[in-house]
């Protein structure tokens, strides 16, 4: 579906934003793209949809070179940016404007999204609050029904019920032929939604693994003095830690803990999750 090979990108010379990113995204998977602010999450999404050209490296999305921005390619991807510009029209007209551009547009998904988010289609978009605007934009993104859906911080500005509705909607529109990439720094919004996690740190890719594989190899649980966790942090429920899973029992993955562990104990986590890559290095 998407193949990135040794991608390097910099907006200015000597100030790299992405370094040697090699990544494969497969169909039927929801990816959570995590990273601290300024690590290059948005840049990576913009490269995937061809708005930016990598300085070096090869990028193939859906068999196309994204930077060529061919119409057939653009009809198969949808990028929902973090800050959205919405035209001064009614929500209904907004959907009408973009519906014919996407051959796989689904009116049924649009109806479901409108109902779940409670979008008022007869209201002008300009008069809506940030959250309502975001819901209208998310509805269009989902209904476009493109094989590759990229969302940059989609839950910013959404209230708590809408975040939950968002998770349900993303899960319900997923098919085996679709790939969804959700970039966020609010990891809790993605809990119980994503299938795989991609983490960027220091402008490099430090982790790209399915959650079930992570749960098989790492264990997330409260720790005491006798344990030697790879990473631990105090929580209101006691100290939670990440350790190598030696029991063989799959463990539920705590994204926030995984994210912090991956950044603070990079080498050990990589060593456990991707021993082959570590050996190659």
């Amino acid at each position, binding site marked *: 579906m998407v193949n990135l090979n040794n991608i390097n990108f910099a907006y200015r010379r000597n100030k790299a934003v992405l370094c040697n990113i090699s990544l494969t995204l497969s169909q039927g998977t929801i990816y959570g793209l995590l990273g601290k602010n300024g690590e290059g999450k948005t840049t990576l999404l913009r490269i995937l949809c061809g708005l930016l050209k990598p300085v070096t490296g090869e990028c193939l999305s859906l068999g196309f070179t994204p930077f060529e921005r*061919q119409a057939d*390619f653009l009809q198969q991807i949808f*990028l929902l940016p973090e800050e959205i510009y919405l035209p001064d029209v009614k929500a209904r007209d907004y959907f009408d404007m973009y519906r014919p*551009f996407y051959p796989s547009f689904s009116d049924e998904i649009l109806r479901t999204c409108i109902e779940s988010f409670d979008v008022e289609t007869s209201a002008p978009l300009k008069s809506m609050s940030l959250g309502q605007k975001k819901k209208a934009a998310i509805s269009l993104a989902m209904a476009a029904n493109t094989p590759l859906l990229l969302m940059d911080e989609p839950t910013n500005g959404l209230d708590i019920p809408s975040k939950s509705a968002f998770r349900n909607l993303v899960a319900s529109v997923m098919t085996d032929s679709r790939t969804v990439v959700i970039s966020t720094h609010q990891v809790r919004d993605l809990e119980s939604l994503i299938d795989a996690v991609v983490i960027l740190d220091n402008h490099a890719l430090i982790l790209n693994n399915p959650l079930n594989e992570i749960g098989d190899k790492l264990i997330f649980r409260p720790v005491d003095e006798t344990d030697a966790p790879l990473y631990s942090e105090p929580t209101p429920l006691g100290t939670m830690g990440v350790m190598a899973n030696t029991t063989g029992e799959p463990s539920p993955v705590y994204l926030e803990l995984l994210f912090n562990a991956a950044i603070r104990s990079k080498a050990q986590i990589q060593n456990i999750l991707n021993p082959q890559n570590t050996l190659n290095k």
Partner: protein
Amino acid sequence: MTATNQFSLRRISLILRADWLENRRTWLYTAAALLIGWVLLQWGSFGIYSSSKVDNLFGLFGLIMLINYCRHVGRKLHRTKGNFLALPASNVEKYAAIILEGALFYLALLLFYGLAHLIVGLLLQAWVRPLPTVVGGATFGSVVTALFFSVLMLLSYVSFPKRPLLIYVGAIGIYTIINVCIMLHIGWESFSISFVTINSNPTGVTDSHDLAGINSTLFDAANRIMDASFAYVLAAATLALMYIIYIKVKELEHR
């Protein structure tokens, strides 16, 4: 690599439709204001009706429409979070939609002209010329010149989000200076040659007139050649500017 179709009339029409849905209210209000203004100006000064006045009014409203069109294009291209450049269509299709929109603006100008004169004609029960001389009696040269300056303004709005009109005026200034310099240079050269010819010819007879009595000094010849080729040079320059605009549109998409 997947085979692709880079040009589809359907997609161009969809881009135009999306633009219409987004801007129809503003455009309709502007159109109504322009039409009322035109009718009032035409009607109010009908007593001093002259062909130059009709032409001037056409030029004035043409300029207003042109500025509006260029501003609209500039705004949608420079809106960083805008949707126009993100639309699933190729660069060529987006560019074609921009140019087509320009043609539609021009058609709207002709429509306003016709409507304004029809209304004024009905109000005053008088015959009004169907087309101003700038349209009806347009030559290739005048059409190319109008196109060149229109495309130059579009380029200014596409390239410079800040103060495009000022930059456009500056560009016209530079264009005028270059033209004056060329004319002065040709004038000086022809003067020098004539001076040398007269001084080296003791009879004082010059070949400044041919057998038919037409001026044939070097200056006149250069003038005639320039006149004949000027329109073609300007047409080539217009095409070059249009290509630059296409490159700019392509470049702006990759921000």
